């Protein structure tokens, strides 16, 4: 199990899509492609945009389908961040 702490990478507001893409490409994709579980830890992050979450995980839905949600978990998300993640995961599943 790998834990990715977002705060040191993106600060307290998760909005930079370029960084989201880098995290996906360099940290998420290599691990989940091998079937390894990853936890994304949002502790210290007060908010996240839909665009950030989309850039972080949407491509993984395209590659792995719904099963990606068995490999990725989200930790220490406040209610707002949980809601944004829910929206993105729902529309990506609808899009399949």
């Amino acid at each position: 199990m790998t834990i990715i702490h977002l705060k040191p990478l993106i600060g307290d507001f998760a909005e930079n899509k370029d960084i989201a893409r880098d995290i996906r490409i360099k940290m998420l994709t290599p691990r989940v492609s091998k079937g390894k579980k990853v936890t994304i830890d949002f502790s210290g992050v007060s908010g996240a945009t839909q665009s950030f979450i989309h850039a972080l995980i949407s491509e993984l839905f395209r590659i792995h389908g719904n099963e990606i949600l068995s490999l990725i978990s989200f930790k220490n998300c406040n209610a707002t961040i949980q809601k944004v993640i829910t929206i993105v995961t729902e529309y990506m599943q609808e899009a399949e």
Partner: protein
Amino acid sequence: MRINLPNSAFLGNLDSFLRRFDPSNPKELLITANKKWISVHPIVLTMIAALGQTVPREKIDCEALEAKSRHYFERMRLFEFLEIDSGIIMTEHDSSGRFIPLTQIKDSTSLTRFITEMIPLLHLAPIHAEPLKYIVSELVRNVLEHADSSRGAFVAAQYYSKSNTVRIGISDVGVGISRTIRKSHHSTDDLQSIRLALTPGITGTTDREGGTEQNAGAGLFFVKSIAAVNSDFFVIYSGTAFYKLLKQKTENKNPLQADPLEDRHSAGNDYPHWQGTVIGIDLALDVNEQFTALLEHIRNVYAKAVRARKHARYKKPIFV
């Protein structure tokens, strides 16, 4: 080009200000002004600053401001952007107020820094800072990713204590919404392009449901939804089209619509041509619905819209 700083131009009456904008002769810019009092939304400043970047300094002619409120424009850095010596002297007792002066943002890193620094300038509580950061991030990133303009985005905001409102303007002089949206969708005119751009799940980068790895086509819909749920003004102007989300009626139990033309709005497709995109939003702090509750509304409408589009693409059986 000719643009006039009128007596009053806010989102509620912006239409008449835009109608007077003259985009002819794009190699020159003439700025005229009301002589007595000028009170304008930050969106007006961002438009003028953006226009000022498209012509050489020697081709900008700005009338000397006589209005009593002229210090506001110095304070908001308008003349600095136009490289004009206004002759206005700011005295120490001029209140700094709560505002974000005109800022030009050209890249992703500058945007991240701007978002961090803007909240202290407006002295906002965390509950109000959250939607504001969200709005600015989504709108400016849209400019950086889609406007195809080296000049980036021009942003300004102002807190108005009387209405307890933060008013935000963002302008660019890029390719405009139609050119972006037509990369992947059919659009007959600029208003149709705005309609598509405001529809959840529609992006100029692909016609595929769910978007690309970097774009979902949701940013503008989210921002419009924040305004709709809080019954605030939201305007978007690009090419010859202007769309204004009007304040929603208080008895409206379902303030969010996937199709912006089903919202309470006004719109036109015959405005003076703006090369690029202009967006303004008012955020009333008194009536700010909890951001998480707002996202729940968005979630419901978004999922419904995607399902409806999916359903519309179903092939029908042929019965012979």
